[in-house]
């Protein structure tokens, strides 16, 4: 009951030899077809508005980007916040993440940090307090601080890069870790390089009059 159209059948038509990879890039037969994913740190300077965090996290979940960690906090500029994201994606995916982040209304600037960027994360560890001397020694080895020490528990703080934190957590396991709270990575570009494009300490500290004039709420 279904008529079709006239013309050569699919197998009778000429077909090109070429192919594209999953990122839509023409495949050079000599080169690897698919891109490997890599870990990248992306920094976004945003308007410090209600809902901005959910906007960013919603973007990541609905576009299926693989997010490792996300930290957020205010800057020295009223109404500005910096979001630091660690992502594991292909080059094309990282490029897309930066562009999509830049499109969000509260987004001021977005940049990817180079490998020499200054980065740190923080962990709070609560361990059994039976061996306070040993706990203290390990804490010192990792240049940490004791925040609370009682007859049953000791809570320490360690900061540093991810590897140092991982090692510290391993070292504290011997005492019996009761609770742990860990932030994601936060980072700034090293030296004079701006963390996000166009950003400099002076510009970042300046706030335009129109931005602070009213207290109306732009909610997303």
């Amino acid at each position, binding site marked *: 009951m279904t008529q*079709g*159209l006239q013309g050569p059948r699919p197998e009778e038509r000429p077909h090109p030899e070429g192919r594209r990879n999953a990122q839509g890039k023409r495949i050079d037969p000599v080169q690897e077809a698919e891109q490997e994913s890599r870990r990248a740190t992306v920094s976004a300077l945003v308007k410090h508005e209600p809902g901005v965090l959910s906007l960013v996290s919603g973007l990541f979940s609905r576009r299926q980007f693989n997010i490792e960690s996300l930290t957020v906090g205010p800057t020295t500029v009223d109404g500005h916040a910096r979001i630091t994201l660690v992502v594991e994606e292909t080059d094309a995916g990282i490029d897309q993440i930066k562009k999509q982040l830049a499109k969000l209304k509260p987004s001021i600037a977005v940049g990817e940090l180079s490998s020499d960027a200054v980065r740190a994360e923080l962990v709070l560890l609560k361990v059994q307090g039976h061996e306070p001397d040993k706990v203290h020694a390990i804490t010192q080895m990792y240049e940490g601080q004791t925040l609370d020490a009682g007859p049953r528990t000791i809570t320490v703080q360690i900061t540093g890069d991810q590897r140092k934190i991982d090692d510290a957590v391993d070292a504290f396991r011997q005492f019996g870790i009761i609770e742990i709270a860990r932030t994601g990575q936060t980072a700034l570009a090293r030296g004079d390089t701006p963390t996000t494009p166009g950003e400099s300490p002076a510009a970042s500290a300046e706030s335009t009059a129109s931005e602070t004039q009213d207290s109306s709420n732009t909610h997303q």
Partner: protein
Amino acid sequence: MSERATSTYPDSTEESTDEKPTRRPVTNGAQSVVRALENAGVKHLFGVQGGAIMPVYDALYDSEMTHVTMAHEQSASHAADAYGIVSGTPGVCLATSGPGATNLVTGIADANMDSDPMIALTGQVPSGMVGSDAFQETDTTGVTAPITKANYFASDTDTVGDMVGEAFAMAASGRQGPTLVDLPKDITNAPTDREPGPGRTPSTYNPRTDPDPEEVSAAATALAGAKKPVILAGGGVIKANATEQLREFAIEHEIPVVTTMPAVGAFPEDHPLSMEMAGMHGTGYANMAITHCDVMLAVGTRFDDRLTGGIDTFAPEAEIIHIDIDPAEVSKNIFADYPVIGDAGTALTRLYDAMAHEPDADEWRERCQTWKDEYPMDYQTPEDEPLKPQFVVEAFDAVTDDDTIVTTGVGQHQMWAVQYWTFKEPRTWVSSHGLGTMGYGLPAAIGARLAARDDQTIISFEGDGSFLMTLQELSVAVRDNMDITVAVLNNKYIGMVRQWQDAFFEGRHSASEYGWCPEFDKLAEAFGAKGFRVDEYDEVADTIEAALAYDGPSVIDFHIDPGANVYPMVASGAANGLFALSEDQL
């Protein structure tokens, strides 16, 4: 993130001197909202009344803007969307909080997928009750965040009008799209005498319109060197009002033009260089052209999967030049060898100027013409068989002007309409592309009717399944005596699903038979519209003439061949070059 946001709104007190003397002064937030719309040049709004939006409607009572009360909020958002497509300026829809706002969602999502300019205003429960699960409360900004270009929650009566002005400006500028402002009732009710200033986009929003000269130069070199060039025009060409630039570019350099579905009308389909629409149900020759080209100039397209088929086989040997105003669309789905970020019209003009010579492509153009002969769009009309839908579409096209506006629902009828109507002008094809919303056609026809000139004919092609979803809007068309002709291509199936079931599910017609459809001609009469029914070929021309002559809404129920299918067809994710011409090729 508890800190309240700072505002980028201008201090509007200075602007108040521009106020027209005849206008009443603003006395509350709702009037400020209405004034902002008036300032933006809004003439029509589409919506439905309700508790939380009542202050805005009260303010509208004194406005000269025309409010069209729709039967359902979904239709308000579709009507506003179509209004934006036809007029080029944002359509406006309104709804109350909760169910009103959520009913708008389909139309907002539709506009978002197609980058249509639109602004939605939603009522919200009073600020003090937000978060308490109050009567008719929904987190509207939360619900619509992923489907709007930007959305806003109003929390200050003094600046609510500026916020609406900003939302309107955002919807219209750069890559267009829907925006939303959520308006708590206490904010719209509270007193203010502040006149909203002119609508401006926020300081952080600065899309690049003029492309980088180096990008243009590299693209021009690649295109000039092409042996098999093709232009792929996307909806962005029409959105950017770049149709003239596109036509000039293609004709001057003699490059064949393929369009995506949203770009239908951007290039005249009767022009020898036109290869018409590519993609899943595009023409065979368009799909051959994009498969075999060596340089593709893609303008204002996001390379949707209905266009590309499988990524691996999409224009597999072509270098891609991609012009787009949204950097995030470049290399999202298809890698762009030559990205050109900017406004489509400006970029095409710059590229035109930068081309040292036209591509040497005589052989290629000839090949493209051969494909047109090899894969003609045609159908049989045996007298003893039921009416073919393609015949109905062509019969309408034959007796109407080039600037007739065609709206559609979604399904087989949409594809027959786009395939067998010869579109020659931009903004005459109004359809739901990215979201594929059944029920889009009639409310879109209402929006298009108000945006179009009075002398433009509006025809809505519907399927029986699609029409059933929003046909209550006939009440609106009758009430306002809108001259719209609805052509229902009735095959008593949700036909595209039936076609797929035949092709991929062994003909098991699960929930796709619509044998209980009402008689649409009689239903139209019940609404107060003019109803017709057509079963035979020899009734087609006279009935179309009578329906078009009728001054008001009319519905023709065309009982078509229930087995008619849409071809060509590229199976989902397959190579465009492998389009099937009949079911046995799938």
